[in-house]
């Protein structure tokens, strides 16, 4: 059990030029093998054109209990959305 391969988080960019997206994780001895394994585990049906791998231990995540203070402040800032502003129809498409 001492020799268990480390865990890697896998990110894949799909066909359509979007951001790399987290798709899952896997075990591999090193980064190169992680990419090889990710190809077999996560892109058997042409799901991607590029792969990123990162050691799971290198990822720092926000804590669930901080959810309120972290994300609630955005709730009352509706003026950040375009629909907050009324533009008369005469002005045309904006």
């Amino acid at each position, binding site marked *: 059990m001492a*020799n*268990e391969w480390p865990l890697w988080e896998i990110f894949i960019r799909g066909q359509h030029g979007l951001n790399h997206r987290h798709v899952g*994780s896997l075990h591999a*001895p090193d980064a190169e093998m992680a990419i090889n394994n990710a190809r077999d*585990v996560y892109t*058997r049906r042409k799901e991607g054109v590029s792969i990123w791998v990162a050691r799971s231990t290198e990822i720092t995540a926000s804590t669930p209990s901080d959810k309120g203070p972290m994300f609630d402040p955005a709730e009352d800032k509706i003026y950040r959305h375009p629909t907050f502003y009324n533009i008369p129809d005469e002005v045309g498409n904006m």
Partner: protein
Amino acid sequence: MYAQNVDTGSKGVRGADELSPEEAAFQARIDDNIKIEPKDWMPAAYRKTLIRQIGQHAHSEIVGQLPEGNWVTRAPTLERKAILLAKVQDEAGHGLYLYCAAETLGISRDELMNKLHSGEMKYSSIFNYPTLTWADMGAVGWLVDGAAIMNQVPLQRTSFGPYARAMVRICKEESFHQRQGYSIMMSMVSGTPAQKEMAQDALNRFWYPALMMFGPSDKDSVHSDQSMAWKIKMNTNDELRQRFVNETVPQAHYLGLTIPDDDLVWNEETGNYDFSQPDWDEFKAVLKGNGPCNRERLGARIKAWEGGEWFRDGLAAYAEKAAKRRAAA
């Protein structure tokens, strides 16, 4: 199903007044269909039950490669060989998605492997039956993967986020498995009388083991209520079994094959097929380790694990050496 008879550590569900405030808040989230994520608080029994269930599901995918791997070198055409190889590779992938989901609950991959090999964790009873002829590859894809889909589609809505996401990926890929199996059956029944006979024989042998995949009858399924309250089980065993029979019988008729059940009859009143239950004593015996292939399957897993140890260690040693060399440079 791929996870049968999963122990929840309790019989029945406790009432709202018996729950601690934390447990009540947890249950309220589940009732509101808010996903539980790995770092969220969860009752110890929920965590333990999920490790059991996802682990058993993962083991089933991995052990499920064995009956089919048996036919990779024996497939009748190059195309069928490539297809079967792709399917077996998918099963490995499904096992890996699920192991990762289980690991987010705080159990390591090696621990899961050791629990499988020691017999402490189970895999689906279905993989303890032998695949004797090429038609069995058809029956396995059609019936076994068909039964798996029945269970896995609702599990995409299960309460634990990583499990639900793994299920979404798996369901996307699983439909190919069932269709390739049915396609094998279609070829077999349009072949020689001997080939059609082979297809019927495969159906005869796999029908009841496939029905067993859904687990014991609801009245004997003591853990169902808790699992359903936690939304890690979305339908009862009997519901899914009935749905499977209703869907599969017409497919058998299309093939011109006979379901091996003299009491199978369409019930106009209920809108369901009435059918015979599998032999539950046989089911229990298979779960206990006394099915036709239990020893062979577990033996093959242990052999692969132990035989691959030098290779796993070698790659780990190389990675360590290369990292040191990079650090020194």
